[in-house]
């Protein structure tokens, strides 16, 4: 299986949202990490055929993104989605099934299966407008799997899910990623950390990095430090370095930060994680590119 994104760009009137991104994805779970901005969602939408690239091409196993057969193997969960009024969970699933080309019998079978999977079986006949955010999100996830897609694209899928639901979701995605291409776009670092096999970092429309957790955090390994100091010293340091965590502990302040060169004496090195990397790239503090 191969999803090929070839020098794809998206130009809006006064903004270049996606800048010549090229990627080749195979089976597994990919985490697209980046700020809440135009880049990620625009790229996601182009992969799902909802937005047309200004330049470049996207294809899956030789199928161009514009082909009906491409959409036939695609499952997409948009960041925001609605539902026709008066639809129950089951109605919604049946409707999406009809759009995905499933016949009635198959639609019924899959709906039953999938609502069970996301624990919505007991509210299948209830109207969606009575659902909580998490329930609606689970319904959204369920509909993506109706046509047993080979390419699963999820935009901010864990929004609104409580911790337990989030864990169940992660397990589900890990299972699905074994024989599918799963592309997750999110700004929740811990989601990516726990399930993505490959991390894709996007900033200002460009792909900054692509690799496993270790590969990607290589950039800041050995540059993350921690110390505890008095408030004034902490303020002083906070102005010079990218701060990852600033926490008051009584009269002192705990500081975790990134330092490129020589660290202050009292600082102790700490192993770098994905969150550190994220803040390093995406915070607006001084002293960072």
């Amino acid at each position, binding site marked *: 299986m191969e999803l090929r994104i070839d020098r794809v760009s998206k130009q809006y009137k006064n903004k270049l949202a996606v800048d010549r991104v090229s990627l080749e994805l195979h089976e597994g779970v990919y985490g697209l990490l980046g700020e809440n901005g*135009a880049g990620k969602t625009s790229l996601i939408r182009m992969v799902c055929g909802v937005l047309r690239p200004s330049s470049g091409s996207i294809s899956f196993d030789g199928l161009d993104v514009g082909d009906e057969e491409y959409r036939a193997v695609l499952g997409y969960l948009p960041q925001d989605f609605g539902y026709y009024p008066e639809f129950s969970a089951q109605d919604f699933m049946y409707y999406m099934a009809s759009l995905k080309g499933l016949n009635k019998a198959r639609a019924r079978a899959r709906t039953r299966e999938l609502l069970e999977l996301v624990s919505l079986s007991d509210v299948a006949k209830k109207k969606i407008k009575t659902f909580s955010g998490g329930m609606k999100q689970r319904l959204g996830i369920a509909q993506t799997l109706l046509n047993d897609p080979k390419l699963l694209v999820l935009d901010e899928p864990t929004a609104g899910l409580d911790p337990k639901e989030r864990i169940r979701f992660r397990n589900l995605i890990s299972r699905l990623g074994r024989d599918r291409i799963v592309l997750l776009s999110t700004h929740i670092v811990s989601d990516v950390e726990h399930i993505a096999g490959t991390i894709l970092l996007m900033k200002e429309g460009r792909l900054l990095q692509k690799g496993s957790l270790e590969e990607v955090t290589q950039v800041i390994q050995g540059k993350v430090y921690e110390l505890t100091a008095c408030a004034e010293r902490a303020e002083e340091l906070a102005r010079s370095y990218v701060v990852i965590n600033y926490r008051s502990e009584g009269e002192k302040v705990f500081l975790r930060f990134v330092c490129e060169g020589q660290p202050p004496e009292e600082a102790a090195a700490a192993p770098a994680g994905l969150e550190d990397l994220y803040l390093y790239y995406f915070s607006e503090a001084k002293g960072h590119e």
Partner: protein
Amino acid sequence: MNGKMKMQLKEYFEAPEPEKKQEFMAGLPSQGVSIMDFLLLQAAYIPKWVWGLSALIFALALIGAGYLKKDILWCVSACMPLPALAFVAESGRSEAWGMAELEMSSRFSLRSVLLARLGILGLADLLLFFLLLPLAYMNGDKPLFETGVYMLCPYLLTVFLGLRASRRAQGREAAWLCGAIALGVGLGYILMYQWSLEFYAAGNFPWWAAAFVLLSLGTAKQCAETLKQKEELVWSLG
């Protein structure tokens, strides 16, 4: 190659009965939907009030024909913007309820969904038109063709303006605008008829005919543009 030879060929190429066919067939994943199934499914998703509206108009026309006599023509014509409004509303339903993105990325994309629904609605409206036409004709004093043209013009005008409006505006705004257009066309009709008895005068018919042709072409173009617009998300900047 005639039928007889085909039969003979078929005999020659005959193969012994397959033995494991039924077993295999039973085990296969079931098939997808055919185009007909798709159309029927989509028809079911057209809101019920739309059908109710058409039925209501028809019923009123039936009843009214007896009382209004030849005035029935402009009454019916003034009502035509309503099914037209329903038609336009249907074109914007997906966006209105936030379903557009999901529909666009499905196998049968938003475009086909819309094409199916508008096609069905269009046919339904055409049926309504053919049911109302005899009523208007028989009670009126105009030739059949002219009666038809007089009835279709307000419908086409509403659809033409409505589709244009729903592409320029969005959501609530578009809904109000379309409603206003329908109301405007309907009222406009009634008022013009009251003010000017010349409205339906025979001499003016060429104007109507020309308007009919222009509006037909214009409406067809607007439909095409609307469908084209649904191919990708236009209003996203995020």
